[in-house]
């Protein structure tokens, strides 16, 4: 990406004394370079955690234990979750933020370029801690990505290292968020008021606030796990006067907003892509901003819907049920606005648009299963079953991940200067959409029928749907190799991309050449 840009026609860059090779990437403070680093890291982690998923699905192809023992299976499910959330989705969105926010604001770079470098480079350290924990005595963490005590107190050394990794990733997110908020608030081009910013920037602004408000809480929670494990405290140990459920409250106070952190930037990407390919402005811009902000605020008062079975008083069950149902309203408003953007537009269906449309439809299915789970009595039957697994994979895979794909296809020509291979892109799209639905739709039925989560083996009546899911998983998984091929091919070459790239594209990033020069907007543009 930038490396092609670097070689292309900017030989004078070398006279600035910029390092080349490995040192360039290690010491870069350039938002485009750092954006690329985040995206590559996310892609590598996608394949790592994806392979774990394939192992999981392979074991679950039939009842009985064929490939793994139960403890290793739990390690796989735990690490798959931790890596996908913290190593794939969050870094990918950070990559988009780095590439796009300065360009969209007409700013020369992020507010704190050196902190930007640190925020990225501690991530591979954390990733390494997580990946190598498989080889430590006792194996990797096997207590679920939710890390509930007392189970989490029982594990070996990898549990402590995982806590360290979580701290590191949290620090990375906090530094990144400080950078993003400061850039957005302090470095917009003259004339670019908040209500003129692209929606993608709004969603990242709100996401960054969510991160700052929740990551410290996660840090507190895992610190307490660490001291319970090693320093004789008993925050979560009833025998010492503590309460395991308190961990759940603290954890979910972080983790519920976290799921909105995982989706708001996706909303932002889709809100850029759909207007471009419908050749029509985003419908209800102000509504979209307010809806996003409402979702963020509401996300702080719904956390205990993850805990409907711990034994809360009736009043609490009712409160959290009502507040959770309420979040459906602003989310629905956004979906209607996207459809209204398409309505009476002049649509074409290049790959970014295909992924964006699939997002709107499939994310909504995930939203509906979320609504079902919000109804506390129904949740009592579905909590900790495959229904929940279906729900969150619909919102995270056909939601967050498809939005990431949409964004990559959309902005690759701007980043690399080449149009990607549209035919390969479409293959990737169709195989992914079909594959994804084959894996995850049957899981709704498995949950309804009574199959619990996080089990390596299951009763015979669950066999057929598990087999279907496994077949879909391999289809979906291997289709991602097409994506890798598209990206590599676009970096190497392809049809030359114009500045505007897409007929309906609007925004400051489409006013600079493709590939975007290493330094852009060194003088601020004036926005009317």
């Amino acid at each position, binding site marked *: 990406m930038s490396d092609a840009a670097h070689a292309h026609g900017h030989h004078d860059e070398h006279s600035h004394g910029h390092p080349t090779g490995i040192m360039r990437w290690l010491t870069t403070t350039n938002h485009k370079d750092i954006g690329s680093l985040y995206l590559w890291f996310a892609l590598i982690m996608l394949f790592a955690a994806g392979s774990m998923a394939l192992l999981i699905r392979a074991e679950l192809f039939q009842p009985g234990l064929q490939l793994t023992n139960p403890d290793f299976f739990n390690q796989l499910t735990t690490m798959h979750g931790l890596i996908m959330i913290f190593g794939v989705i969050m870094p990918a969105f950070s990559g988009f933020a780095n590439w796009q926010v300065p360009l969209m604001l007409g700013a020369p770079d992020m507010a704190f370029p050196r902190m930007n470098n640190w925020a990225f480079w501690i991530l591979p350290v954390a990733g390494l801690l997580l990946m190598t924990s498989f080889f430590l005595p006792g194996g990797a963490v096997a207590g679920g990505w939710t890390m509930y005590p007392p189970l989490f107190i029982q594990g070996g050394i990898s549990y402590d290292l995982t806590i360290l990794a979580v701290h590191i990733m949290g620090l990375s997110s906090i530094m990144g968020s*400080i*950078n993003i908020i400061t850039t957005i*608030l*302090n470095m917009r081009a003259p004339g670019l008021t908040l209500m003129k910013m692209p929606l993608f920037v709004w969603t990242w602004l709100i996401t960054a606030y969510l991160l*700052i408000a929740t990551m*410290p*809480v996660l*840090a*507190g929670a895992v610190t307490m796990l660490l001291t319970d494990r090693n320093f004789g405290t008993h925050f979560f140990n009833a025998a010492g006067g503590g309460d395991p459920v308190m961990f759940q409250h603290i954890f979910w106070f972080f983790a519920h907003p976290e799921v909105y952190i995982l989706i708001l930037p996706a909303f932002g990407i889709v809100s850029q892509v759909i207007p471009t390919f419908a050749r029509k402005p985003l419908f209800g811009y102000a509504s979209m901003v307010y809806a996003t902000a409402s979702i963020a605020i509401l996300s702080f008062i719904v956390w205990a819907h993850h805990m409907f079975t711990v034994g809360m008083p009736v009043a609490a069950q009712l409160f959290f049920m009502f507040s959770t149902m309420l979040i459906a309203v602003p989310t629905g408003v956004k979906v209607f606005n996207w459809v209204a953007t398409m309505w009476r537009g002049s649509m074409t269906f290049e790959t970014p648009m295909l992924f964006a449309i699939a997002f709107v439809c499939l994310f909504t299915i995930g939203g509906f299963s979320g609504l079902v789970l919000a109804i506390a009595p129904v949740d009592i039957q579905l909590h900790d079953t495959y229904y929940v697994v279906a729900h969150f994979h619909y919102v995270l895979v056909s939601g967050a991940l498809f939005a990431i794909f949409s964004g990559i296809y959309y902005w690759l020509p701007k980043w690399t200067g080449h149009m990607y291979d549209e035919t390969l892109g479409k293959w990737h799209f169709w195989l992914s959409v079909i594959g994804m639905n084959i894996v995850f739709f049957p899981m709704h039925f498995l949950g309804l029928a009574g199959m619990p989560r996080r089990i390596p083996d299951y009763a015979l009546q669950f066999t057929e749907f598990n087999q279907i899911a496994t077949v879909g998983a391999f289809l979906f998984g291997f289709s991602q190799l097409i994506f890798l091929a598209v990206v590599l091919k676009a970096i190497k070459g392809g049809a030359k991309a114009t500045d505007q790239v897409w007929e309906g594209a609007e925004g400051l990033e489409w006013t600079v050449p493709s590939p975007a020069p290493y330094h852009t907007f060194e003088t601020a543009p004036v926005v009317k």
Partner: protein
Amino acid sequence: MVDKRNNKYRTAILLALFALGLFLFTLYNGLQ
């Protein structure tokens, strides 16, 4: 331009302090 640079650091420090405070508040709450 100088104003904006001062603002920049002020924004950042405020956010960082908030994060730190929240972390300590969580731990304090756990102790209760």
